[in-house]
């Protein structure tokens, strides 16, 4: 009789290469950001007009201590990337989490409670999604003024629909399952059913969306810095570096390319982390 379980319980999933690489890169970035003053080889703001446009270390004319070269004001590219990671990660974690909580809560309520709650939230989502997001965020920042809080607020206000839409659909699908009916026959109320029965089943999706959202938050922050609407212009940001690098790409390609690669890897790592975690979290796949 015990064989009836046919060993499904015994299957253990390995942590994939994907999860290792994504997690590894993000950990590295996080450590670099937290310990930036210790690991950055130079002061990210220090200008040195004798050391402008130094190439990265493997090219002729490179200076020791300036591993990825310097920009047209003689500031160290690597140090600026490391300091830029601070802002990028703070925005990713804080904006991503707040967006996730608000969006998921609204989606869950719309999808499970249905009725007028769904009607209101769904209409709101439809209206919201008709705004072009980048333009909307630029407009928003222009109105409330640049700064860390503004970036986070802009991301939350624009992106909650991503969560709300998907979680609503998931909650609707779960709500149609027999286990929900059983819970209700057993006397559990609507809210209790939503939190105890539905939420655990949409959690894997929420986690995947959260990590994707963190990647998106990094991009949005870069876009806003690119158009100079992020935080004060002195502090290094990836977007700001890309904007500056674009101007001198023919003389010093590294000023553009290295922040771009960092940005790309970070966004990719967030999305891959989500996929990897989904495999681990989902009890049906686990």
């Amino acid at each position, binding site marked *: *009789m*015990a064989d*009836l*379980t*046919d060993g*499904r*319980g015994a299957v253990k999933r390995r942590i994939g290469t994907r999860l290792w690489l994504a997690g590894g890169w993000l950990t590295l970035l996080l450590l670099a950001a937290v310990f930036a003053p210790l690991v950055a080889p130079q002061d990210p703001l220090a200008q040195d007009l004798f050391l402008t446009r130094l190439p990265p270390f493997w090219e002729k004319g490179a200076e020791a201590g300036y591993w990825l070269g310097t920009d047209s004001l003689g500031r160290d590219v690597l140090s600026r990337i490391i300091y830029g990671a601070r802002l990028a990660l703070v925005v990713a974690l804080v904006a991503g989490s707040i967006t996730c909580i608000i969006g998921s809560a609204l989606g869950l309520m719309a999808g499970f409670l*249905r*009725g007028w709650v769904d009607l209101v939230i769904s209409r709101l989502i439809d209206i919201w999604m008709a705004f072009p997001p980048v333009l909307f965020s630029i407009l928003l920042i222009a109105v409330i003024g640049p700064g860390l809080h503004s970036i986070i607020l802009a991301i939350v206000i624009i992106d909650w629909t991503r969560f709300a839409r998907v979680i609503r659909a998931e909650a609707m699908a779960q709500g149609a*399952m*027999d*286990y929900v*009916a*059983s*819970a*209700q*026959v*057993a*006397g*559990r*109320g609507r809210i*209790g059913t939503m939190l*105890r*029965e539905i939420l*655990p*089943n949409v*959690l894997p999706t929420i986690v995947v969306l959260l990590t994707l959202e963190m990647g998106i938050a990094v991009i949005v922050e870069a876009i806003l810095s690119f158009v100079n609407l992020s935080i004060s212009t002195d502090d290094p940001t990836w977007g700001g570096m890309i904007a500056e690098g674009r101007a001198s790409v023919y003389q010093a390609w590294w000023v553009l390319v290295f922040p771009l690669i960092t940005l790309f890897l970070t966004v990719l790592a967030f999305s891959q982390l989500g996929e990897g975690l989904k495999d681990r979290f989902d*009890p*049906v796949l686990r």
Partner: protein
Amino acid sequence: MSFLSVKNLTLRLRDNRAPLLRDVSLEVSAGEVHGLVGESGAGKSMIGKAVLGILPRAVEIAGGEIWLDGVDLLALPPAARRKRVGGLAALIPQDPLTALNPSRRIGPQITDRLVDILGWKRAEAEARALDLLGEVQINDPARVMRQYPHELSGGMRQRILIASAFAAEPKLIVADEPTTALDVTVQKQILRLIAGMQARHGTALLFVTHDLGVVSKVCQSLSVLYAGRILEQSTVRDFFAAPSHPYSAALLGATPKYTDPEGSLTPVPEAIIAGLRAEIAAYDEAHHG
């Protein structure tokens, strides 16, 4: 006084007011097993769902009464109704694959209801769950309590759902085609299990099925439904001896015979269906203009 008494229950779709149940009445006494039979769409599941208060959102109750243990459920506010039903009735659902929450372990899914809603002590509830899992012939219940639904086979899950339905000693269980989603060999075991549990616990059972063979084995009385109307109600013994409605007789005739495996399948004759349709149309005409 019957334990469950449904009086003139009428259900319809919220959108277009299309009727799903038309003036359905039935009585189930304490400890009785009552079969609800009919084709797909006849409304047999809807009766069970209405009793338990889990009708789909698109369906509304247009009239009637549902008396459970002397109280009209439809006259109660939703919270009180849920509480009353939760204490007296339970469900054995159709599809064991979706009837257990995939992200939670088996144990809490059985005991939660006892602890959270009926106020049992956790240890008591766990002991009860272990007992019941043993009663539905699950080996090593302690281990199964710690497993997730996906680790178990369909038959195992249906056993767990049966155990769970009996956990709070309900007076009425609605079994909504409990064997339809299982394969034939498992169906028999599950059927025997439900019948045995019912007899031991003396629970009234509303058994929804489209299988007359199942009814003859498990039920004491039955209602035959067609398009939301009850055509015939009688004891199982009388029904199988001499069905009174021509549709029932045709249904019985359409059941493939074990003794005649070569015999062709006889559909219900067109004339009877046409007669039923006319009857339903006349009813709708009279009731809704």
